């Protein structure tokens, strides 16, 4: 057992444990906070994968914005928080079965893939990954168009969200 492997197992345990709490816990606000724990764990995984930029973006975007948005939504809809009622609907058994099925299916598929136990090759240190990434996002022959489309999508979502959530003034 190497240190990195131990670290990975710790983070994996955190991620899976908190994810399990997200889907089972009764109090919605706790579910949201457990989600934040999961997100931090995933950010740590990114860092372990030498993707520091992704780790930071994960925290800024997910923890700083998305999770906070969830907490807001939960607080705004707290009249019936169902904190006391059962958190799962009556189909949960089937759902659990399907969850297991999907995991089993994915595992079966992956196990048969020949690259299943690949090791990572060393990352060349002379290339600045962030510069590469930034350049790729604004190069027409690379990912400029997807980048622009994503920004338009965000704009549309912004306007749509404001429009949908805006309470119509009845006067």
């Amino acid at each position, binding site marked *: 057992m190497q240190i990195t492997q131990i670290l990975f197992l710790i983070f994996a345990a955190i991620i899976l444990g908190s994810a399990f709490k997200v889907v089972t816990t009764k109090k919605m606000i706790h579910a949201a906070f457990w989600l934040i724990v999961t997100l931090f764990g995933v950010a740590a995984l990114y860092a372990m994968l030498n993707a520091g930029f992704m780790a930071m973006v994960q925290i800024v975007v997910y923890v700083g914005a998305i999770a906070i948005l969830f907490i807001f939504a939960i607080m705004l809809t707290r009249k019936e928080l169902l904190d006391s009622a059962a958190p799962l*609907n009556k*189909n949960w058994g*089937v*759902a659990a079965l*399907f969850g297991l*099925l*999907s995991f089993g*299916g994915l595992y*079966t598929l992956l196990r048969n893939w020949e690259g299943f136990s690949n090791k990572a090759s060393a990352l060349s240190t002379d290339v600045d990954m962030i510069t590469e990434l930034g350049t790729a996002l604004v190069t*027409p022959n690379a990912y400029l168009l997807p980048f622009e489309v994503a920004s338009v999508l965000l704009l549309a979502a912004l306007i749509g969200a404001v429009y949908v959530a805006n309470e119509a003034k009845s006067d």
Partner: protein
Amino acid sequence: METTNLIWLLPLPPLLAFFIIVLFTNKSNKLSHIIGVSAAALSWAGAMYVFYQAVVDDHFVAFTDTIDWLPLGDGYLEIGVRIDPLSAAVLFFVGITIFMIFLYSVGYHNFGQPKGDHDKQGLPPHGATVEDEHGHKHTVPSVEPMYARFFAFIGLFAAGMYTLVISDNLLTLFVGWEIMGLCSYLLIGFWFAKKSARNAGIKAFMTTRIGDVFMLLGLAFLYTATGSLSYEVIFSEATLHALASAPAFWGLSAAGTIGLLLFIGAVGKSAQWPLHVWLPDAMEGPTPVSAMIHAATMVSAGVYMTIRIFPLFSAGWDHHTLTPAMSIIAFIGAFTALFAATIAIAQNDVKGVLAYSTISQLGFMMAAIGIGAYVAAAFHLVTHAFFKALLFLGSGSVIHGMEHGVLHTGDHSVDPQDMRNMGGLAKKMPITFWTFLIGGFALSGFPIVTAGFWSKDEIFADAFAHGHTAVFVTLALAAFLTAFYTMRQITMTFLGEARTPEAEHAHETPWTMTTPLVILSIFAVGFGWVGIPEDFMNLSLPTNWFHSFVGHTLPHPMAAPVFSWIPLGTSLVVALGGLGIGYLTYRNFKSADAVDPMRKLLSPVYHFIENKYYFDEAYDYLFVKPATWISEVFTNKMDQGVIDWILHSFGTASFAIGSTIRNQFDTPVINRFFGDGSAEVVQIFGRWLRKAQTGRIQQYMLSALGVLFIIFIALYYLVLA
């Protein structure tokens, strides 16, 4: 930074100014004109820098840069910028004139004056009443109600012009071309509440559209023939040779056909006969527009394009016999030069004279290109842009001064644009007078000092040296008339005594208007000196800089014509003679309703000329009326009578057939048996199935996933395993 990067950026400031003004600052006149003028200044500074870089480089060929633009099936459509000596020269005058005109517009549209009493959007300002501290009421000019919009439009226009000049291919050139066409339409019809302005706008748009359709045909032909629109490709020796040897029709080669089709576009844009009719009407727009679009830049674009495609229509030219395409261009140019000059002598509108003068001068350039005088045409293009912009701005200044007089007297029946109402303005508006005089002399080709003399002289010399006598004589006649009507205009407007009280109360215009005049007049004089032939009067002068600079745009520059006394003499005679006769004829023109001296001299012809050879009426009878008539006949007789009848009878027949089928077959068989029967089956089935539709999203997801899993497992075991 790289010069090519700067070139890319040249059209950007005015374009941004357009969007900023339209979207954000259209409520604020001050911000709008600050943005507009500073954008023009930025582009001007950039253009000057590029020009400077081009001039200081001794072995200058071109600044080029291309990028991939539109992905096509097998590659990219490239766009790019190219500044070679020709476009550098054009960029030079375009930058200056556009900047000057932006500045001039600030004063012309009465910035800083109060809002008008009854001014409405779409009408020229009528003046405002103000009360001074003593309680006296004055009428003063009022600010243009659509001030910000004006700057937005000319901003967009400037962006189009810069795009056209810097582009390295005919496609982006055409884009700029069409942007300018749109702006021209918008600006001619700027005072859209005036019916005449509206009609003039439509007329300009429709007329130039005719040319543009042909131009587009030419572009399409060119693209099919060569697979590219980039100058570098289409003007390469191999392509030109291939095009020149490919026959098209009527004895024209493919190169000639393409050249002519593109040239028709230029005929529309540069208002050459027979598509010249829109330009005089375009004077309905505000004067800066007339100066910018219809004298200095847009109409020059047609000539610029023609010069640009010179290699195309001259392909196969052996420097002795003109190619058919060149002959046609030379003919149209020379004819237009003379024809428009004759009309100009009978115009009384101060801008009308200049409008026809512009047509005539553009004809000079076209004729010069037609006979292969490449450099002379470019030279005249540049000098003409300067002095014509100067003249138009000067005339705007005169009108502005006269409007001041009209506001003062309050007699709105007096037309401030009619030269008969002026006279003696030299004393009232000294700066305008002197600059106008310089511009007028440049236009007439006053010897030695003015720019117009050198450029016209070069055209004459070329025409004479290569033996194109017909063109030479026609142009000489036209030049004589030019000098004559110019002097007529100056005499009627500025000299003598004031013929109306309005002219007596005319007033010099503000500094924003006179500064551009002064600056432009410097160029109207000085720019000619860069193109003095080195063997002028058999002296040995320094090298003809302009000729050697612009001449190198072509791979094989043409030699300048050898000096000869005959064209120089002709040029001197027609210029001085025309000016002299003009002054002598009109110095006695004393009263506003006196009969024009020329009317007595040429009584029947004069009427003809005064009405512009009835071209408008002829077009009206030949094209507009028949078109209206045909459409009316078609609606009334063909459409309603014949076609509708056929349709109606179809209707009746099908109705009869339909009702039979319906009663005999449809109702009993289809409806009763298949229709109702199937519906009942579906209803029974649906009643049973609807229980599955619980409206619960998660149950739907479960069933979808369940099906997915089944399919997936089946696939896995059947296909993969």
